[in-house]
């Protein structure tokens, strides 16, 4: 049964009003809260480590699987290993994410280690949202790791979002992209107060005509800090682009380090990065349409993090 806090967290993390339709696995405070499988998507407990194996049959199309995590136990630092096997030609959406509800003084944390094996021709949209709620003073810590292994002609779109409340986040994304496959990563992070977020990405374009586009949008408010690192390595004829932009507000600090490594003469890699305050001409434009300063700032940030 879901209590009020569980419902609130599920809504924030996965946009769910209650138990989702189709396949799902809800983990709460390190334990299984509920699970449902479908004809094409099987979920079972991993016998070797704490976590689940999600097996999506080849050719499964237009199905989704929800695997949200709820954490509301003071002092708990939950670690979970989830493996996703996406069969050939499947086209699915995976909604993950973790919501911490902190009501006390003790810290709470979750480390979700996700491994994706994307088979040939499969298409995956992976949406992961991290939030932290509650009036407690304990630190809220989220350290996700995502490892992606793509065979040929597969597509994966990853939307990684953390828009507030998380005191400490250390993210690690790793990917190996096969021939003709495409990986699109969009990471959106907003920090405030004394929060810290660190994102490290090791992306390898290993197959001929593989492609990737890595977009990072950071908003750093208060005294918070964010660091973003990408190492994009190309060992085949391929195309890769990194675009990382950070808006600094108040006294935030940011380090953005995109690195490109071409180990093949036909690799084409580009990057663009920017760090700065909200551009004055953007503010002037919205104010000249009738928004006051604060509303203009909000609209610009809203668009930036979309």
């Amino acid at each position: 049964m879901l209590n009020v806090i569980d419902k609130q967290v599920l809504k924030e993390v996965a946009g769910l009003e209650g138990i989702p339709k189709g396949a799902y696995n809800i983990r709460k405070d390190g334990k299984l809260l509920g699970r449902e499988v479908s004809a094409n998507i099987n979920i079972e407990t991993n016998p070797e480590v704490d976590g689940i194996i999600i097996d999506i049959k080849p050719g499964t199309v237009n199905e989704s699987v929800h695997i949200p995590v709820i954490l509301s136990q003071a002092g708990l630092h939950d670690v979970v290993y989830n493996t996703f096997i996406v069969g050939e030609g499947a086209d699915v959406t995976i909604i993950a994410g973790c919501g911490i509800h902190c009501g006390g003084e003790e810290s709470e944390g979750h480390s979700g280690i996700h491994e994706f094996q994307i088979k040939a021709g499969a298409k995956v949209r992976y949406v992961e949202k991290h939030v932290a709620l509650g009036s407690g003073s304990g630190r809220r810590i989220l350290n996700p790791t995502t490892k992606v292994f793509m065979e040929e002609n597969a597509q994966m779109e990853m939307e990684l979002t953390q828009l507030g409340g998380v005191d400490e986040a250390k993210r690690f994304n790793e990917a190996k992209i096969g021939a003709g496959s495409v990986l699109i990563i969009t990471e959106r992070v907003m920090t405030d107060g004394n929060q810290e977020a660190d994102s490290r990405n090791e992306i390898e374009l290993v197959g001929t005509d593989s492609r990737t586009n890595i977009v990072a949008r950071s908003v750093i408010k208060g005294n918070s800090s964010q660091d973003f690192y990408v190492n994009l390595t190309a060992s085949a004829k391929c195309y890769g682009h990194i675009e990382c932009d950070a808006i600094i507000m108040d006294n935030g600090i940011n380090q953005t380090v995109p690195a490109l490594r071409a180990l093949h003469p036909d690799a084409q890699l580009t990057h663009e990065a920017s760090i700065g305050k909200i551009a004055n001409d953007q503010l002037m434009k919205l104010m000249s349409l009738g928004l006051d300063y604060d509303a203009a700032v909000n609209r610009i940030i809203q668009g930036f993090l979309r």
Partner: protein
Amino acid sequence: MLELKNVTFKALDADDDSQSSSVRTIIQDLSYTFEAGKFYAITGPNGSGKTTLAKLIMGINELSAGKIIFNGTDISKLPIHERANAGIVYGFQHPARFKGTTFRDLLSIALGSEDEERLIKLIARMGICSQDFLDKAVDSKLSGGEIKKIELATVIAKNPQVAIYDEPDTGIDLWTIGPMVELLKREQQEHGTTTIVVSHNRAFLEAADTLLLINDGKISYSGDLAGAVPILEDLSVCTFNEQCQGDDDAKCYR
């Protein structure tokens, strides 16, 4: 309707070596009354103060002295957004480019509504047929023509009493200027918009009911285009040749 009373704007003028600065008067004791529903063109040499004057009306630049009266109310101290909500809107010469913000976002802010039907009706009024255009990101990928089209559309969407367009033809190809002039004239005529266009382009000067010639921060002429032509021709003859030419440090002093 919109009255400028002894308007003056002074700015710090940093010297080339950035070691010292001095105060420069850009708009000097300028007075003029814009009448409701008329089409004005403001022209003059580069650096004469045209854009500064337009930005003073919008509140982007703050007055150093003088007053701006709009519909009988002194708006000299009002911030930009309050002037916008009072009925004055400004189209920038170099429109802002955003990340993530779409044409739909800007149009909805200007219109004060996200209603799809109203948005589509609005873009049709501006001659934009494609609804896909609504979801275009207003970013660096847009062409000069597209961003100008969006800029104009956002001004019109606000349904202003006074619409100020600062060099709307910048970045626009020759073939687009005619329809743009027609659009602004149509807005003026059908919606009674007092239209002020800062431009060097003859098409706008010809479309205007009144032309204001700004030189050295002052209005040196106001009237029809025919009367302005001899002055404009005179201004186009450069008198700084001796100063600007040379092997070293060649630059324009106009």
